[in-house]
Each structure stands twice: as C-alpha cells, then as structure tokens.
C-alpha cells in the first residue's frame, strides 16, 4: 500500500504530463518553427500603402499663399461588392453630386475598382463616409487650389488632374514643387485595423516657391487693367511693374487672364514710339546728337521717292528734347539714319531686344529684331521710331528699367527663392549706355511728361519720366499697316529722380481712342500712384496744397491732368 505522500507525488506527476506536452509544443512552435511561422503570419498581416507628400506652395514676396495643394480624397467602388446594393446608388450619387446614372454605369463594370470621383472636398467626403457603404473605398489625393482665384493666373499656370505642372511656373518648377511618394509599412489584423510599422522612405516636403510678385500690387495692376479694358475694349491688354534696382517683377497683369499663356513673356507687338528711347540713347551715346540740337521735323518728309514719313501733328524745327516730347517720327527717323543699321541694331540688342531676357518661364519669346543694312533706308527709319520690329512687354519694361537704374540691363526675375535658400543678387547683363547718356535720356523722358505727349501720365508731387507709344498694326490681309488698328502703350518710371517702379502698359486695338497718351498713360498714372502709396514713397517734388480743393499740380506740371481718358492734353502731340 502506497503512502499518502507517494500517492500525491504520482498524482502530481500525472497532472504534469499534459503540461509537459503543452510546454514541448510551445517550444516546437515558438523556438523550432519560429521563423517559418513568423514569415507566414507576416505574409498574411503585413501590408503597405503609399502616401503622396503634397505639392509645394507658391508664395508672393511677402509670404501670402498664391497656390497650394490641399489634402483630398478620391472615391471608387467595387462593382462586384456593389451588386445587390443598388438601392444605395441614389444617395451615393447625391453625396458625390453626380448623376445617378453615372454611378450605375460605373457599378456595371467588370473589374474590382471603378473610380467615381477625384479630389473630393471635405463636405463631400463626410457625406459619403456617413453612408457607411461597404463597396466604397477612399484613396488619398490632392487638389491644387488658388486662394486668390484668377490673380496672377497666367504667371502661376495650371496643373493637371494628376498634379503635374502644365503651364507657367507650375510647369517650369514642376520638379522642385512635386511631392514624392512615401511608402508606409503596415500590420493589419483580421478586422482590418492597421498599425504603421514606420515609414520606409524618409518624407521630404517640397520647398515653397517664393515669387517676386507683390500680391497687393498685383491686385491693383489687374484691377486697373480690367477697368481700362472695360473702357477701351482692346483685343488684349498687359501691364508690368518692375523694380529697376533688382530686376524683380512686382506685378504683371494681362487681360483676358489665361493660365495657359502669358502675354507678358510670350506676346510680341510693335512697340512704336516707346522704342524711340533706344534710338535717342544710341544717338546720344554715339555723340551723333545733343539735347540742344535742332532737327528739321517739317513733314511730310520724303524718305525715298516713294515713301514719305509724317508726324501726327505738323512740326517744324525742333530741339531734340521736343523731338522726344512731341514724339516726332521724322526727327527720330533722321537720327536712325545717322546711326546706320549696324549701330541701331547693336544698341537695340544691348537694351535686350531680339533676345530672351533670361527669366525662367516656359515659352518666353525673343521678339523680332533684324539688322538693317544702312542702304535699307525705309527699314532703318521705321525701326528708329519703333515699327518693323517686335518686342514683348517684358523686354520693354526691362529696357526702361535699365534707363531708370542708371544704365545697367538686369536679368528680370519672377522667382525670388526656392525653399529657404536666400534670394540671389541681381544679375547685371550689361551696361547699355554711359551714365552721362542716361542722365540726358532721363531729362528727355521727363520732358515727355512735362511738355509732351505723356502729360496724362503726370503724378502730382512726383517726378515722372516715360514715353508714349502708338504703333500701327500690320493687316495680315493686305500686308500693309492698318490705318484703323493701333497698339497703344506707355512705358515709364517713377519717381524719375530716384526710380522705384518701372511700369509698362500695352493695349492692342483699343476702340474709340487709340493714342498711347489717352489709353495707356492714364493707366500708368493710376498704377504708379497706387504703387507709391502702397510702398509709402514720399513725394519728391513740392506739392502745392490748396485748402478745400484737390492739390493742384506744380507750375511745370500739366495745368490739368485729364481725369477722363477721353480728355486730350492742353497741347496734343504725336504720341
């Protein structure tokens, strides 16, 4: 007979046998077969997903957002899972703001996924999620958004549905702005709950693109241009503002706005009398004329036996400053002939015409400028007063910026910085003329405002310099210059004694009025005033303030700056 103690030990041993079996099994599973079983489990549970880092933002020079990508979702359905649940289609269509037949059509597909809608807004997403439909899946997406609507649309450009740049700066800087795909490893349980195991790629946010554009000034430019376009109804209009000391473009407006095309960089037109600044600069620099020289501008002037040149108003013998102020074509043609084809072409190229400016923008036009042999008197003479060649609005404003900053042609810029990199220093392309010539040129351009065709561009209290332009358009049908279609323009800078802004305004085929002095110069004045006020530039000329009346102009300023564009200056001259 076994003792009690022995019986207890035997019972304990018997009870421990299953435990040993369990322990042995555990050792087999957890130690011996650990690797195989782990691999099988991970194969079942492991998943990964790709997330796109949002596309970089585009900011103005003060940090205001001009373009950004917002997180969004795309929704798709599984046609096989959707079978038998057609009753949910109307509510799904209503939540997605789609026609019900569109949802039914997608549900009839043969695959396992049919895209219903991309780039859902937050409201649509919440509405679809609230339906709790098992056959609907959501995919992260992004939506490019422009909080300022159409502001600077032609500069910013556009993106495709996949978020790739299609035009403008979105295209030019597509690689820098594009977000990368970011892979995340996940563990998933039987109920579909997921747990991130950590990202396999380190996410890099694309840098922000900071432009030189000032949002406020851009708004003023677009508003002023829109007002002028509504009044004069041109085919198109453009206005550019540049900082002459840095070459930075502060605003650029074009009408009608087009995100696929920028008229500032791509539109070419014949500059007309605004090009006379180049001719005058060349003649002064080459010592072929001086400010006091009197030139016979009596017209019509027989350039050749078959070609005559005339001014818009009959002139007689004029000193150079009045040739410029009155915008005499005859006077300028004579200067052009003195220069000869090679020199005029050289100076035009020096001022940046006939070549791209170097600004990073897709599709920039170089304009059209051909060297004229000196025996081509007609071509040379017409080039001298700005016909027979084609320029872009950017080239004109950049050329005047060279005059405004003392004679250095700068490379214009629309992008200040990419990411946190510091803004680069202005790039000087070349010197266009000596400081002495620039000084003389400045006084000629001031004379245009004080005594000539640019009186409607005068700004009380500020010294202003500039040149009007009214060029005939080529009629493609007759291949001759039209007598009814003109391009009205004005280019100038303010304050002329220490220039802060260079502004060019161009209007193609304005109705009812077509002179640059009537159509473009008032827009320049309006824009210049707004820019000066926005930047707090104090007046640099004595301002005569009469109580209870608007300030009258200084004695040398025009007696009555026209308030309505239709009003002509006191002594209308050839624009």
């Amino acid at each position, binding site marked *: 007979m076994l003792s009690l103690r022995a019986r207890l030990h035997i019972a304990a041993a018997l009870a421990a046998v299953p435990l040993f079996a369990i322990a042995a099994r555990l050792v087999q599973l957890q130690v011996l077969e650990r690797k195989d079983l782990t691999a099988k489990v991970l194969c079942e549970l492991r998943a990964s997903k790709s997330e796109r880092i949002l596309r970089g933002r585009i900011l103005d020079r003060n940090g205001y957002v001009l373009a*950004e990508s*917002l*997180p969004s979702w795309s929704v798709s359905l599984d046609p096989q899972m959707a079978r038998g649940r057609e009753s949910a289609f109307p509510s799904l269509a209503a939540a997605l703001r789609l026609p019900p037949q569109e949802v039914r059509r997608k549900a009839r597909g043969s695959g396992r996924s049919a895209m219903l809608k991309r780039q859902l*807004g937050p409201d649509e997403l919440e509405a679809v999620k609230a339906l709790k439909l098992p056959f609907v899946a959501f995919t992260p997406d992004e939506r490019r*958004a422009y*909080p*300022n*609507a159409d*502001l600077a649309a032609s500069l910013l450009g556009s993106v495709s549905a996949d978020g790739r740049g299609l035009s403008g700066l979105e295209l030019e800087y597509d690689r820098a702005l594009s977000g990368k795909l970011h892979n995340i490893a996940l*563990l998933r*349980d039987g109920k579909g*709950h*997921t*747990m*991130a195991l950590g990202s396999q790629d380190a996410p890099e946010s694309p840098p922000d693109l900071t432009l030189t554009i000032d949002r*406020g000034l851009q*708004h*003023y430019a677009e*508003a002023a241009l829109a007002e002028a376009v509504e009044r004069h109804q041109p085919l198109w209009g453009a206005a550019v503002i540049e900082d002459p000391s840095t070459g930075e473009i502060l605003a650029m407006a074009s009408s009608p706005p087009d995100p696929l095309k920028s008229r500032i960089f791509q539109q070419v037109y014949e500059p007309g009398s605004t090009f006379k600044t180049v001719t005058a600069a060349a003649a002064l*620099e*080459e*010592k072929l004329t001086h*400010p*006091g020289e009197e030139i016979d501008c009596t017209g019509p002037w027989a350039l050749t036996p078959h070609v005559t040149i005339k001014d818009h108003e009959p002139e007689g013998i004029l000193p150079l400053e009045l040739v410029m102020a009155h915008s005499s074509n005859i006077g300028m043609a004579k200067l052009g002939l003195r220069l000869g084809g090679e020199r005029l072409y*050289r100076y035009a190229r*020096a001022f940046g015409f006939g070549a791209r400016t170097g600004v990073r923008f897709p599709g920039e036009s170089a304009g059209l400028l051909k060297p004229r042999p000196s025996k081509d008197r007609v071509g040379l003479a017409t080039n001298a007063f700005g016909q027979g060649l084609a320029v872009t609005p950017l080239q004109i404003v950049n050329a005047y910026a060279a005059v405004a900053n*003392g*004679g*250095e042609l700068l490379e214009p810029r629309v992008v200040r910085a990419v990411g946190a990199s510091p803004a680069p220093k202005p790039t*000087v392309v*070349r*010197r266009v*003329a*000596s*400081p*002495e010539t620039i*000084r*003389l040129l*400045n*006084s*000629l351009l001031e004379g245009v405002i004080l005594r000539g065709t640019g009186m409607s561009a005068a700004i*009380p209290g500020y*010294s202003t310099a500039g040149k009007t332009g009214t060029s005939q358009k080529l009629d493609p049908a007759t291949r001759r210059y039209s007598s009814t279609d003109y391009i009205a323009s004005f280019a100038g800078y303010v304050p*002329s*004694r*220490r*220039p802060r802004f260079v502004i060019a305004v161009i209007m193609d085929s304005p109705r009812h009025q077509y002179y640059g002095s009537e159509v473009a110069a008032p827009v320049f004045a*309006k824009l210049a*005033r707004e820019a000066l*006020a926005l930047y*707090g*530039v*104090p*007046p*640099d000329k*004595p*301002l005569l*303030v009469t109580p209870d009346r*608007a*300030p009258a102009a200084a004695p040398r300023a025009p007696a009555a700056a026209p308030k309505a564009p239709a009003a002509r200056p006191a002594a209308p001259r050839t624009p």
Partner: protein
Amino acid sequence: MNRWVAAAAGGAFLLVTEQIQATHLGFELDKTQRSVREARDHEAHLRFQLDQETTPGELAVLARSRLGMIPPNPDAVVLLDQANDRPVQAPPPLFATAGPAEELSPAGAPRVGTAEPHIAIAEPRVGAAERFDRVRSAGASILRTQLLSWLLPPDSPRWR
C-alpha cells in the same frame, strides 16, 4: 521548485499580456495618428478658406458692400515724411537736369560693350541725417523746457 515554476509561469503570463497590450496600443496609436492627420487636413482646408476670405479682392468687395467704403480720390492722398509732419523736401536728384550742349562729356566716353565699373544706386544719407538732427534738437528743446519748468517759477524772466 514550485516557487520557480510559479515564477516562470507568472513571467510568461506577464510577457504575453504585455505583447497583447503593445499590439493593442499600436492599433490605438495608428488610429490616433489618422485622427491627427484628418485634423491637420481639416485645418489646411480652414486655412485655405481664411486665405480666400482675406485676398485683396475680397477685402475690397467687403469694404464696399458691407462698410460702404470707396477708394479715395488719388489727389486726396498725400504721403508725408515720417519724421516730420510735412511733405519732404526733394532729395538730391540721382540725375541732374541736362545743361547746354557744352556740358556733354568729352570724346572717348565709354561705349556699349566695354567693361564698366558697377555703379551702385546709393541711398542718400543727407536726408536721414537731417531728420535725425531735427528730432534730436527737438527732443533736447523739449527736455530743456521741462527742466526749466521744474526749476524756475512761471513768472521768471527766463520764460520771456
């Protein structure tokens, strides 16, 4: 020996419990991270809405429609010098007015294409220094007046 078995069993139980808890917390963490992402997405949309409402165009419309404001007559806006309460004197011009023909530079002036020293557009110091002197002298004058008012009686001949 029973104590060791009990300790081992307890340790194993603890390990298993911790593993389960860690997995559970992992799922919770992922859920929380998703919530944070959703909140950030929502914030991004709200910020965009705010940007839309504060564009210059929108503010102009609001100013006109709700506040009845109109753009000022350009002639009614006169910018003043910040240091003094009156329009500034004209600073020395960058470009002097062109004189008669004799003042032109002599022959041999540099032409396009030759190397030129860079010409910097320097900010004028004269205007700033003048303003500083005026402010300093005005401040000294005020200080002097205050000291005199403390030290001398009002009817002192110094005030005349």
